[in-house]
């Protein structure tokens, strides 16, 4: 087989016989991170615009594979492989299509972008505050909805969340994205999917569940939404309706205290493990703040879920909590 070519930032590099993408980039004088050069350490992870050679994606998690990430040290393309540049996405203008206050501190914003905005439901975007700050929010909608749905919890004293809560319909703002590795990959339509989130960690899970259903997923989907008390759980009726329309989807509401007949009570990780049943062959999506995601990841892993099947984008605070 004749060696291929790579294209990076407008530059075309002809590979030599037997040469990997990593070697080709280095020969062209480009600075590429690398480590083991044997497909193990993943330091030379790059993203292509086209599908990379399968051998260069071995051992990567499914969401990386779906986004054409590959290991440069293992890639010997035969055709042209165009690499993604290192620059991130440009900001896009969007308008507020609707804003609904769902609980005392959670609002649902639907934004209509002015330009094309490609994403996978469950990924996140950055909202850019006019003052220069930005905050990340997960996307709860599907591209076919025509709007970008965000669930915004008002943080006491929060500059960006407070501003978003006060926006009126038709207000303009800028967003940038998408980012993140927490989305549905339709590689096995019989697989059990376990979606667990706390608070506004529900947003990506709604997107992932609807995306899986729309893509014809047939295996069981368990969505577990956790909150402190019953009145903190939002979108319950919408979720219950979605579950009624989709026999493979089960929705569970979970609280730490004050459960009624409609909620499970207990620590979210323990409730989720109990409800999920056997975890062999399952895939989990975990969303919420850093601490709860850390706990869920560890508990589900110890309960038998393979580490490579745990997908999570923890919400991180915008700055370290004050001591």
């Amino acid at each position, binding site marked *: 087989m004749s060696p291929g070519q790579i294209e990076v930032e407008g530059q075309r590099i002809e590979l030599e016989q037997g040469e990997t993408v990593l070697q080709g980039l280095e020969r062209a004088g480009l600075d590429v991170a690398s*480590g*083991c*050069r*044997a*497909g*193990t*350490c*993943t330091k030379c992870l790059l993203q292509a615009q086209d599908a990379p050679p399968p051998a260069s994606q*071995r*051992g990567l998690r499914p969401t990386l594979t779906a986004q054409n990430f590959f290991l440069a040290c293992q890639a010997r393309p035969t055709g042209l492989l165009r690499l993604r540049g290192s620059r991130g996405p440009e900001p896009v203008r969007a308008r507020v299509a609707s804003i609904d206050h769902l609980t005392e501190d959670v609002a649902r914003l639907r934004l209509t972008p002015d330009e094309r905005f490609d994403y996978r439901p469950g990924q996140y975007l950055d909202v850019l505050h006019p003052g220069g700050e930005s905050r990340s929010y997960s996307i709860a909608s599907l591209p076919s909805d025509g709007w970008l749905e965000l669930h915004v919890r008002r943080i006491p004293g929060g500059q960006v969340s407070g501003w978003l809560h006060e926006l009126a319909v038709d207000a303009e703002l800028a967003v940038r994205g998408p980012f993140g590795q927490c989305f549905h990959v339709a590689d096995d339509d019989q697989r059990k999917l376990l979606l667990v989130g706390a608070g506004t960690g529900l947003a990506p899970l709604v997107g992932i569940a609807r995306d899986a259903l729309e893509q014809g997923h047939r295996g069981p989907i368990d969505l577990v939404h956790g909150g402190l008390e019953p009145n903190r759980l939002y979108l319950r009726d919408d979720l219950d309706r979605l579950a009624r329309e989709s026999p493979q989807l089960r929705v569970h509401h979970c609280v730490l205290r004050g459960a009624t007949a409609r909620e499970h009570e207990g620590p979210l990780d323990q409730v989720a493990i109990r409800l999920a049943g056997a975890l062999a062959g399952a895939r989990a999506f975990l969303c919420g703040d850093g601490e709860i995601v*850390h706990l869920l*990841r*560890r508990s589900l*892993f*110890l309960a038998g879920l*393979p*580490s*490579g099947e745990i997908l999570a984008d923890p919400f991180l605070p915008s700055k370290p909590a004050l001591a």
Partner: protein
Amino acid sequence: MSLYERLGGEPAFQSAVDEFYRRMLTDERVSRFFDDVDMEGQIAKQKAFLTYVTGGPAEYTGKDMRAAHAELNERGLSDEHVDVVIEHLGAVLLSMGAAPDDVGEVAALAESVRADVLGR
């Protein structure tokens, strides 16, 4: 053929490293060292370690190993903890079908890392 290849290479080690890490998280003698650790990153590092000690494609530098364990040394990491790691390493390899002789060789290689891990 390296032990790494004989035991099934990358796919086999993907699940073996999960088993290895589960053992570490649930062993009270060492679990406290993993409480606040980013699990995803840690599993990637341990996979590289398992690959290295079984003769697979992974690089190893004593400098990396020293830097990675410097903070744990301050928290009391000592010989007995390294013994626990080598113990679990052997058990996982046996469960993957390694012969006792192979396990002995791997343990000897892991021994050579001890000084770096303990910052000696």
